[in-house]
């Protein structure tokens, strides 16, 4: 893991990493990858076979009121007249 790779990940994650932290982050992530790479030694055969034991749980799609709609909008940092405010995206 090098500084350029960290910059690329930071861009993909929409997350500013200060210039002075890049080297430390690269080294930490490199160490963690070194540890989790132990799973590469495990032989599992064909891992494309379905291994997930989870099952979907369905319910009927019934229309029901949601009480605090405006409260949910108010959880946004900037809002006005029950709308979430976002920066201008089209010039």
């Amino acid at each position, binding site marked *: *893991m090098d500084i350029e*790779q*960290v910059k690329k*990940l*930071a861009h*993909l*994650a*929409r*997350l*500013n*990493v*200060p210039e002075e*932290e890049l080297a430390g*982050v690269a080294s*930490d*992530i490199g*160490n*963690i*990858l070194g*540890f*989790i*790479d*132990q*799973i*590469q030694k*495990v032989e*599992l055969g064909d*891992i*494309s*076979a379905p*291994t*997930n*034991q989870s099952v979907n*749980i369905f*319910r009927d799609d019934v229309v029901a009121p949601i*009480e*605090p709609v405006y*409260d*949910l909008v*108010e*959880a*946004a*940092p*900037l809002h006005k007249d029950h709308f*979430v405010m*976002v*920066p201008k*995206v089209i010039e």
Partner: protein
Amino acid sequence: MDNTISELHKKILSGEITITNLVKGYVDRARVDTRNIYREVFSDIDEQVARAEAMLKAGKATALTGIPVAIKDNIMFAGHVAGSSSKMLEHHTASYNSTVVQQLIDAGAVIIGRTNMDDGAMGSSTENSAYGPTLNPLDETRVPGGSSGGSAAALPADVAVVTLGSDTGGSIRQPAAFCGVVGLSPTYGSVSRHGLISMGSSLDVIGPLAKTVEDAEIMYNTIAVKDAFDSTSVARPDSSFTLKKKLAIPKGIFINGGCDAQVQANFELLVEKFKAEGYQIDEVDLPHFGDSLAVYYILMPAEVSSNLARLDGIRYGDRISGDKSLSDVYNDTRGALFGKEVRRRILLGTYVLSHGYYDAYYNKAVALRGVIRRELETVLADYDAIITPTTPSTAFKFGEKTGDPLAMYLSDLFTVPANIAHLPAISVPSGKDTNEMPFGIQFIGARFSEPTLFALGKTVENVR
């Protein structure tokens, strides 16, 4: 420990104490406590107290009526801040009640505050809280564990009778062990996560931290309900059970080092005591048990990077703003308001999910997760539980592991397999080391075997 739910419930029923005075005593102590256990002691609890008094008067008191409870800072209680001890959500007010909070309120419990935790529930010591660490009441130079460190420390400090935490890889059981209390990570799906600020959704559970196994059982029976708001929620089957009196130890857990000698000695002592109680205890082959932590550190960051995408400066929490473009708002808000460990995990998760690495990491980890789960379930078909120490060491000192993320991650060595396999696990105090710091013993059971785990935990309380 004094002031358990059952003890206080009896005193409330007999009139020896009043709910009003009981709650006032806890709130007063919580307010002056200096160990950074609480992020906030609520000031608007009069209504809750009045409702509890009314339930008592009407003869409708449950075991939890009037009992002061604290909740972890990532559990939503309508009208109160749920901040995840993160700068990102410092001003985030819950717009609805989590299902667990609603269950507690319906039972008449009095929720007196929210407890400190690692930022975003990511950490094993509360040292990642944006508001400073919680001190372990048993030795204030040591960490209380994490991420539910405040919820654990509140109990030996007696600033709450019982608390709620959340557990993604050990965040209830590890701090419970470090603070000498009981911690239950319930069966995945038995307790609704509706209103829990998500971290790793395929791993997260909510559970109690308590002074006794009986108290943890009272809490579990109150909060474990099927809930339409959490699609992973399932109804609990019939709770009857028969003890086989057989326990399994994963072969080789002490071979690779990394486990403190005193922890191992305490564990072996407990094994002897269970044998004296007529238990058969076998070492069993669990070839991939030791791969759980690596699997966890792929799946968890992957889910973190995806779950925390919603914290973008637009929808929740705070925004670093000014006259900026949308992408600057995203980049600046997330860069400035997420703590260092949160940022590290988001970047790691982004890496394991990125094109070219997805098969080698994420898909391989998902496949291995299935193997680990089947191995554990096979053993649990024949045994009451798999037993391990809860943690490889007792509570460590502040700063001891902050420079090395991997060393911190290794605290979760024995706790992550239960989350990986969606199994319930309980940590029960099992003695103290030469520094007077508590050990915990962990029992991992089959799905919905909580009643068995409670019975085993009570045996520990009797023989330790």
